[in-house]
């Protein structure tokens, strides 16, 4: 079979497998929701308190930038599962026995990722047309003006995201939750770098178009924009602005600009090839041999291989359990859940957690609260993200759900283990707040300790994957406590947020999430 044909079938089978899942429908609905947010005017692009008239060029640009900003994050999490699925289903080991080369495999997977992202972008294109028509400022739709921002700004970035998702799945340390966290920070930082470097290190393409936009704004205002005005806001603006408008007629896509954007597609190809280098071709021995070397001396391995030699002499009679042995103890389950959560953590994980605890005790109270606490509560993110998803991830659901009262017994233990984790890692700040008599701050902290594991459990139970919590929590954490946005400060790190009653809001959200988690687990038990 020819290489293009193999590539086509690799991509096709993977794409079909994805689009026939309900989760794909949810993904498209998310894209519709995002597009609606723009169409309804909740997300706008502001430059010097002005915005563009809603002609095709402006709407296309606006929607393409929204795609680049949000799909680069959410889309990555959506597509980063294709290699893992082959690994989990065992299809990978079958593929590994075929003549298919490693670059071909990673290339096929990246193309499949790209096709999924393309479907989401296509939804956004439709939403762009709807936005222009519903706003009615300029009703004539110019196809090229509307499509070209998608073509030159969005598609190269999506190609890069698709390729990077494959790379993350092939590099051992980045496959699981740690990779998801790393991508969040890559995403957050790369946008800023792109704008600062004016397109040189700018896969988002924001730096490339800004000069054109500043020129149009300057023309509308009848003056050259000052350096301090040369910035933009993509998002919602609280309060109604008396915004002026300007006419932007689109980019002149010169060959230089097109080549600059196409270079990111070449970058994506390079990333795919790098992924092929790391790709283990589904050989479990690579991973296992490292683990065994680390945990067991060779003599023990030999002893283990010898086991079974005296099988005949082993008894086959099982003694009955003594009367009264079956007495449920919640503490036993809680202890087991805590051990399950912490098992496999390396010494350095505890060292960093201990370091953050010490910092929480010795730093000035305000710094401890607004700076140390957010980091104390981002460190265990991968432990929290396993809540509610462990059973589906490891295939233990049928074992656990066939035990008595799984909703009343195991689920609360899972949740409480997450709360204890929050209390342990962020406890230093709580002690400081209590000692200072700042009971309102202490209350905000307590709500945070309840909110995080409840959010993890609810999202985990309903989505069946840890990625949703990792993405949502990182976003809230980044915008809220880290960037000091009171409305998203769920941990009471900002006195202003506590004073405005945000802990009560998050307490109510926590209660709703807890109810959702219980309902989700009941649904899991009933739908089988």
């Amino acid at each position, binding site marked *: 079979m020819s290489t293009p044909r193999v590539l086509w079938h690799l991509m096709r089978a993977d794409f079909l497998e994805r689009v026939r899942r309900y989760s794909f429908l949810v993904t498209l609905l998310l894209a519709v929701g995002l597009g609606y947010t723009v169409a309804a005017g909740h997300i706008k692009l502001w430059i010097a308190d002005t915005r563009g008239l809603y002609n095709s060029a402006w709407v296309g640009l606006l929607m393409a930038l929204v795609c680049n900003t949000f799909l680069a994050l959410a889309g990555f999490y959506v597509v980063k599962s294709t290699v893992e699925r082959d690994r989990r289903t065992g299809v990978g080991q079958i593929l590994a026995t075929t003549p298919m080369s490693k670059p071909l495999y990673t290339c096929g997977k990246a193309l499949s990722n790209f096709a999924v992202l393309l479907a989401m972008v296509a939804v956004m294109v439709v939403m762009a047309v709807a936005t222009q028509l519903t706003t009615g400022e300029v009703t004539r739709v110019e196809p090229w003006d509307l499509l070209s921002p998608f073509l030159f700004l969005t598609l190269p970035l999506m190609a890069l995201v698709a390729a990077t998702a494959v790379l993350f799945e092939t590099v051992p340390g980045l496959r699981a939750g740690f990779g998801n966290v790393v991508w969040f920070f890559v995403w957050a930082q790369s946008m800023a770098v792109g704008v600062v470097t004016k397109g040189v290190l700018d896969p988002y393409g924001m730096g490339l178009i800004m000069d054109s936009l500043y020129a149009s704004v300057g023309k509308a205002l009848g003056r050259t924009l000052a350096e301090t005005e040369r910035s933009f806001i993509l998002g919602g603006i609280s309060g109604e602005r008396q915004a002026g408008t300007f006419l932007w007629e689109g980019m002149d896509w010169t060959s230089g600009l097109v080549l600059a954007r196409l270079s990111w597609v070449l970058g994506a190809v390079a990333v795919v090839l790098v992924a092929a280098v790391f790709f283990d071709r589904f050989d479990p021995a690579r991973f296992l041999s490292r683990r065994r070397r680390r945990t067991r001396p060779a003599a023990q391995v030999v002893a283990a291989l010898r086991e079974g030699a005296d099988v005949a002499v082993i008894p086959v009679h099982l003694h009955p*359990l003594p009367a009264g042995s079956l007495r449920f103890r919640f503490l036993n389950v809680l202890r*087991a859940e805590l*051990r399950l959560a912490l*098992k496999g953590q390396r010494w350095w994980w505890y060292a960093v957690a201990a370091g953050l605890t010490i910092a929480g005790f010795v730093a000035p109270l305000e710094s401890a609260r607004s700076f140390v606490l957010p980091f104390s509560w981002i460190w265990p993110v991968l432990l929290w993200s396993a809540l509610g998803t462990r059973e589906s991830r490891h295939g233990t659901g049928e074992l656990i759900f066939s035990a008595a009262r799984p909703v009343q017994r195991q689920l609360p233990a899972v949740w409480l283990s997450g709360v204890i984790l929050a209390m342990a890692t962020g406890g230093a700040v709580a002690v400081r707040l209590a000692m200072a008599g700042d009971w309102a701050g202490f209350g905000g902290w307590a709500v945070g300790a309840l909110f995080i594991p409840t959010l993890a459990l609810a999202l985990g139970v309903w989505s069946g994957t840890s990625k949703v919590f990792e993405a949502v929590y990182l976003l809230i954490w980044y915008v809220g406590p880290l960037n000091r946005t009171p409305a998203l400060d769920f941990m009471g790190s900002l006195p202003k947020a506590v004073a405005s009653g945000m802990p009560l809001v998050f307490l109510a959200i926590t209660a709703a999430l807890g109810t959702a988690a219980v309902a989700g687990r009941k649904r899991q038990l009933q739908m089988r």
Partner: protein
Amino acid sequence: MRLTIEGVGKRYKGDFWGLRDFTLELGPGVLGLLGPNGAGKSTLMRILATITRPTEGRVLWNGTDIVRSPDGLRAVLGYLPQDFGVYPNLNAVEFLEYMAAVKGLDGRAARRRIEELLVLVNLAEARKRPLGGYSGGMRQRIGIAQALLNDPQLLIVDEPTVGLDPEERVRFRNLLSDLGGERIVILSTHIVSDVEAVATGIALVDHGRLLAHAEPEDLLRRAEGRVWEWVIPSSELAAARERWKISGTFRRADGVHARVVSDVPPPGAAPVTPTLEDAYLAALEGDRARKEAAA
């Protein structure tokens, strides 16, 4: 101790019935559940294990409906699914301690039980190794151990000997025989010799329906006069397979000795004593022939 299955059916999407009008009454002993792939065995197992809800009918454990009140059964249930996972970072003891806690086993009793089970399933030496490094057979044995943690009155094991080496398989059969004396054991498998070795009763399932529920001896009696040994040249074997239901072959100097399951003997064939595998094939063939005749 009674398990009553009354007219149970399970409909999946697309109006496909995985199980239909299934009725069975069970007391202590080992029930071997036999049937081809997709017959509905695993669906039945999951319904009995309170994992899947039946679309129709009901299952009673000592008179209590397990859909309405599953926890009465769950407290005394041991279940080994066909496909299950383990937590790869835990070792055998830690995993079993976790399962014991979830099943409501007292801490001290759990520790003693785990030690006994690890010896029983021959994993005592590997007890401190992370489960992620276990072979398929070792993982299967951990699954068997967790199913026995709470001294179950109803033990449901779905393809339990998959991945076990012959010696372990024999030991597990003996264990099931031992357990079956005072509890209900339901064993689903494709390996007829496993059922032959331990089952006190056999349920034959095909296309989601119960074809027969009988003692092994009874099934064997029903197959008498329907199994033949036929000696043919090896060059005729392929043609013979197309025409007759051949349950096994072995080669001798005089040609291929084929065991044929048929109401009518092939020319020159001699009657032989049926094995349980012959009886199983005869029952399936008979049912299919009846359906074809009715159609």
